[in-house]
């Protein structure tokens, strides 16, 4: 059984920090998840009500909605180790993609 990752990245506008966070996340996901993930990027300036719903304070904030448990990772995701830890992925970036349970 494969479990699909659902990731939501909350950002504030098109800033260098936003770009950096998206790039970092894409890289980590491609290296570790292949195509087994869905990523939604939400700009809180355009959709503040979604930030309200999720009670986001800091940007960028990545929420791993699936698989459980739900987890929040705050920052531009430049700390790859922390991101992998937060996504419950093995900390060897050269690994096999590790989506199987």
């Amino acid at each position, binding site marked *: 059984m494969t479990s699909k990752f659902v990731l939501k990245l*909350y*950002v*504030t*506008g098109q800033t260098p*920090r936003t770009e*950096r*966070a998206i790039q*970092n996340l894409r890289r980590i996901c491609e290296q570790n998840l292949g195509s087994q993930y869905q990523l939604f990027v939400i700009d*809180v*300036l355009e959709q*503040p*009500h979604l*930030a*309200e719903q999720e*009670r*986001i*304070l*800091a*940007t*960028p*904030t990545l929420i791993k909605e699936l698989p459980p*448990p*739900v*987890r*929040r*990772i*705050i*920052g*531009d*995701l*430049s*700390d*790859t180790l*922390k*991101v992998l*830890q*937060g996504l419950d992925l093995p900390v060897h970036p050269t690994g096999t993609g590790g989506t199987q349970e």
Partner: protein
Amino acid sequence: MTQNPRQPAIEKLPTGINGFDLIANGGIPAGRTTLVSGTAGSAKTVFAAQFLAEGIRKYGEPGVFVTFEEPPSDIRRNMESLGWDIPTWESEGRWAFVDASPQPGEEVLFAGNYDLGALLARIENAVRRIGAKRLSMDSLGAIFTQFADSAVVRRELFRVVSALKRMGVTAIMTGERTQEYGDIARYGVEEFVADNVIILRNALEDEKRRRTIEILKFRGTSHQKGEFPFTIMSGEGMVVIPLSAIELKQRSSDIRITSGNPELDRMCGGGFFRDSIILVSGATGTGKTLMTTEFMAGGVNRGERCLLFAFEESREQLFRNATGWGVDFEQMERDGLLRVVCEYPETAGLEDHLIDMKKLIQEFRPNRVAVDSLSALERVSTIRGFREFVISLTSFIKHQEIAGLFTATTPSLMGGESVTETHISTLTDSIILLRYVEMFGEMRRGLTVLKMRGSMHDKDIREFTIDNRGMHIGRPFRQVTGILSGNPIHIAPGEIDRMNQLFNDESEQT
């Protein structure tokens, strides 16, 4: 006036918090952020919430509450007891929460640089959505504990403050202090909201809790200085007692009213003044409650409304006493002219008593008020708190243009001064002393009018007796000196004659 002509004067926004706007000379600086700092339990959240509640209730101004600490559900529930129906206001679009409280049980990891752009976006969104004029943030310490990097939080809060200014929102930010007298707030928050600072205190003084509020600074505009007591009341919220801000502009009239005792009226030069404060001081059992009773009865007999606050005796006791002096309090209450309120001083703090008393005076609209005794209230307060209480009460009574009679109990039977007397004698217009006088192995009672502002009065120390028709003032004591100091010394009649002769000779010569 002394404003820099190039800089427009800073406008004030009335908070609507009872009494606060008086000490703030009109309110807090409009369109700015004011830091409200205090220790744990100093009522910061109440201040923050009331600022919005009064805006909605009194000025029709919607408000946003940004909570960093308690979840909105807790705030809704806690404020309900103060009489504020937040859920209704939310549904009417007049109150909006921005929930920035920590989420329990959710793991958060930090992986790189961040800002609080989402918080700012949510605040701006909430302000626009309901057209908020007011905003409260409570409390800053809690957001510093959510994010490890204090420098980032400070920078981001500064952005929030700037954004609020741009949007013309008047804001309150609460911050923690670790001690009552020390740094303004933790985490260096005063660095970005340094212009306007209010301090709330909940200090322990003589084993009694005393809440005070102090405006430390308002940049570019004026305010009253120093600490002012306040209290929190259910159904009202915070009530500030503005002492020095009370204007001493009472009109004093020369209308006389009866003391309830014709002879005492004569001693006072025709009665008490209508809007004056009379202090009756004496040891226990000298007749203070009797004078209070006659003062009330004297008013009722002329169709005046009278209000008696009794802090020493029970209702039954008071009514029985009155009956013993030929006064029917029960009938007077039935006629609606008298109201007797009996309370134990210990049931509430002095600030709460004051507010209750003011409320009753406003409701009942009496022509005269008596408090028996002030000394009983002194027990539940610090000396400073007590003095503030008396200033506030006397000033309030005078504003209503009614007469007030207070009693004070002296600690020793034979005389001397009471603490009450020492601290309030300058605030009263008239002082009447009641004393025991020992005469040849017998206790008698003496009375004198020590002070009668703006009027001639009898300077004799007169003997009085008490029977079932009340107080009877008789002749002056002629053979005793030192009554007031509590050391009566008898003088031989010959000596008195000689002294009198001495003065008579002189006056007859002129």
